[in-house]
């Protein structure tokens, strides 16, 4: 199934060439979880801090469905 993916800040290097903040469509197996997706992308576990699915913060156990828009952030702060 196809999902849309965005990686931010230092994680952008794991999706080379993707413009900042623009979703890239990728194929993943049915019933794939966020955690499996992060592992497939070889994201360092301690760099996976906040994951969004369709704008909602989700945990790594979240099962993805066709068309989901995923955004993954490393630890960041500001204000």
């Amino acid at each position, binding site marked *: 199934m196809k999902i849309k993916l*965005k990686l*931010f*800040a*230092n994680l*952008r290097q794991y999706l080379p060439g993707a*413009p*900042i*903040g*623009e979703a890239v469509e990728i194929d993943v197996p049915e019933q794939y979880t966020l955690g499996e997706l992060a592992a497939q992308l070889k994201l360092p576990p*301690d760099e996976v*801090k*906040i994951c*969004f699915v369709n*704008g*909602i*913060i989700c945990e790594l156990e979240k099962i993805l469905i066709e068309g989901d828009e995923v*955004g993954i*952030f*490393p*630890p*960041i*702060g*500001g*204000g």
Partner: protein
Amino acid sequence: MFFVRVNMTDRTYSVTDVPEKYKHLAGRGLTSNVIADEVPALCHALGPNNKLVFSPGYTTGTSAPTSSRVSVGGKSPLTGGIKEANAGTSWAADLGVLNIKALIVEGFPEEKGKFWGIAVTWDGKPKVEFFEATQYAGKPLAEVHPAMYEKFGEKISVCSIGMAAEHGYSNSGVAFNDQYKRPTRYAGRGGLGAVMATKGLKFIVLNRAGAPGVEIVDKALFEEGRKKMIDALRTHAITKPKGGLNSYGTAILVNILNEAGGLPTRNFSSGRFEGAPKISGETIFEKNKERKGKEVYNHNCSPGCIIQCSNTVYDEKGEEITSCLEYESAWALGADCGIDNLEDVAKMNALCNDYGLDTIETGVAIAVAMEGGLIPFGDSKAAIELVHEMGKGTPKGRILGAGAATTGRAFGVRRVPVVKGQAMPAYEPRAVKGIGITYATTTMGADHTAGYTIAPEILGVMGKQDPLSPEGKAGLSRAFQATTAFIDSSGHCLFIAFAILDIATGYQGMIDEVNGVTGNKWSADDILKLGGDILKVERKFNEAAGIGKEADRMPEFMMKEPLPPHNVTFDISDETLDSVFGEL
């Protein structure tokens, strides 16, 4: 330590020991207590009875990391309530080194249109000299700051006010120098610049030469605390070298708030901005890399900061447009106005610094005016012209300079995102409920720094809490507000919170540092109580000024209009809002 009182009625001053009742206070705790004790709550903020108080935190001027903050307090012309705004600058450290616990500016010159400066040096105790400064009025700050260094030497620090303050705007900050002598570090919110202007005071120049430095009662304990704090800041992913803040600056938050549907867009009509990535920290980093031919990491705003989050935005020729462009400013002058042109946003930021304007209040006021039809959303060139009009003091500029609430009235706009008259910062309260509770209830008017629940609600610092849920958020906001009131007194930048809320030894490090400096034996419970006590003093002042719990409310549209993309309203009851201070 000393109290220095500067009387601008007759340009005299006095230096006294710190009164007994204030000895245990510093920073925000001290400014708010002096204001509450000495300023009549119902006075006019721009009248003779208001005062301006500067105070360094407990550790400011010491070798504690990231501790060069100064609090500025007064009655706010914007909110009508008490105000504390703080900034990171060498000026703060110098105030501490000069052993000045509080610099209190009072009185009211009869002669209008004239400005003076004061130069503070060390002569066995702090010494104040007055100088004429009228010739520096009516000009951008970047033009006149160098004159102070020419006049008083390179090793000084400079506090100043800009044209916005001279015009008497409720949107006018107090400026301080950064590490490169730029007048760009602001105690920006609430119009304290205009209070300083009413005193006829344009500059406060500090020269620390010969001054003894901050006395540390228990050096061993201080060193222990300092090491714990350094360890926490250097290891936490957000605050460490080449970590999130050092690489991308605070504007790293643009994309994550946009993703969360909590980035206020086009005058708080949506939580998503399609142009967000173009004004984000990642884009600033990538453009700088391309334009400077190397990765550019951020610098410190003040001496001793090891987080170093201040960025610089360069143009296509590699020339500096502005430093620093914070998240709040990129958002206010960008997303909230529907503007995605980074260079124009940076230009407006530079103009705000030059004119002495608070970037949040400026961006939100322009966005309200855009909704009122003055200029279209997204028109960055027209927005730049409006900032110029604010600087010049044209009638249109003066309306905007009075702040977002006044701008809303002038243009008949119903959607005006303010609490207690102060513009909301860069987090949509409908999509991030805890920060909305802070906006509604803080003594400061809408202010994210007063109780930054964004840490657990969005950033996963100190655990994770669902931003869309109201559950437990009143207690969360209360705890953050009390802790923050103490951090604002500690001398540390609030950004230490990212590290010390996750790393318990870092939190203890802050307490050890403060106990080391003061000789107190405060516990974690004690500092929470001290923070709560500060809030109560501020609250009492506001109530006496006619700003009670009825003012702890969100604008009506936020309770009625669902916010895209999550289609949520601000669904927190009045009882819940009242419980924040009711159960303090």
